[in-house]
């Protein structure tokens, strides 16, 4: 149903209320409909409710990981992983698959955590085994 505010925005609606002119456009759209008086009704819903500026996940995390890890561990293990997951995220975003994007984002953070831990643990383990061998 139209509110007073809506009607203020919509200048082309006929003055007399016509049931056939009642249209409910979705957010951010303008819809037209011909009415019995021969005029065209226009209704706009300019309130934007579902627009989100999407940014690649882990963008800020990349800077922290660069600082935290050795250049080798970052460039060889963590960066390719982030790149791969960001690519998949982007593909899911293009398909408008919201649940898949959320799943990819969650999986990405888990994989980053696992690989970052591994980047810390692996040199320690290598040192221990070298000590055992030597």
């Amino acid at each position, binding site marked *: 149903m139209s509110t007073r505010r809506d009607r203020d925005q919509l200048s082309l609606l006929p003055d007399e209320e016509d049931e056939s002119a009642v249209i409910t456009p979705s957010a951010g759209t303008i819809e037209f409909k011909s009415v019995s008086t021969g005029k065209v009704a226009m209704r706009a819903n300019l309130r934007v409710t579902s627009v989100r500026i999407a940014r690649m996940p882990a963008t800020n995390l990349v800077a922290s990981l660069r600082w935290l890890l050795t250049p080798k561990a970052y460039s060889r293990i963590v960066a390719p992983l982030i790149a791969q997951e960001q690519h998949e*995220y982007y593909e899911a975003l293009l398909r408008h698959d919201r649940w898949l994007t959320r799943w990819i984002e969650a999986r990405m953070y888990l994989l980053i955590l696992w690989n970052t831990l591994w980047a810390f643990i692996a040199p320690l383990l290598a040192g221990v085994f070298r000590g055992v061998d030597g």
Partner: protein
Amino acid sequence: MRLPSGKELIALRLLRDGGPEMYGLELVKASGGRLGRAGVYVTLDRLEEKGFVKRRTPAAEDHPGLPRPRYKLTALGEKVLKAAEAANEVMGATLAMEAV
């Protein structure tokens, strides 16, 4: 020279048969579950360290975000893979003869 492990051999075989260059995820998909998402880059890192594969990271991608590196087999990797496969065949034949 350190020889490739089981997972490293799988990755080398896939890189030889899969095409000139492959992404990490392509290797995961082609391996049919033998290589995991979490571990594939650790495996590729080891192979790169041994000189069996070469990594090439493009300057930019056609999508926002970090560029995905591509991996390809080196001449040394190909030789090592051939040698490992030949060794496996000999070992398999020997075991088969012993079983008889």
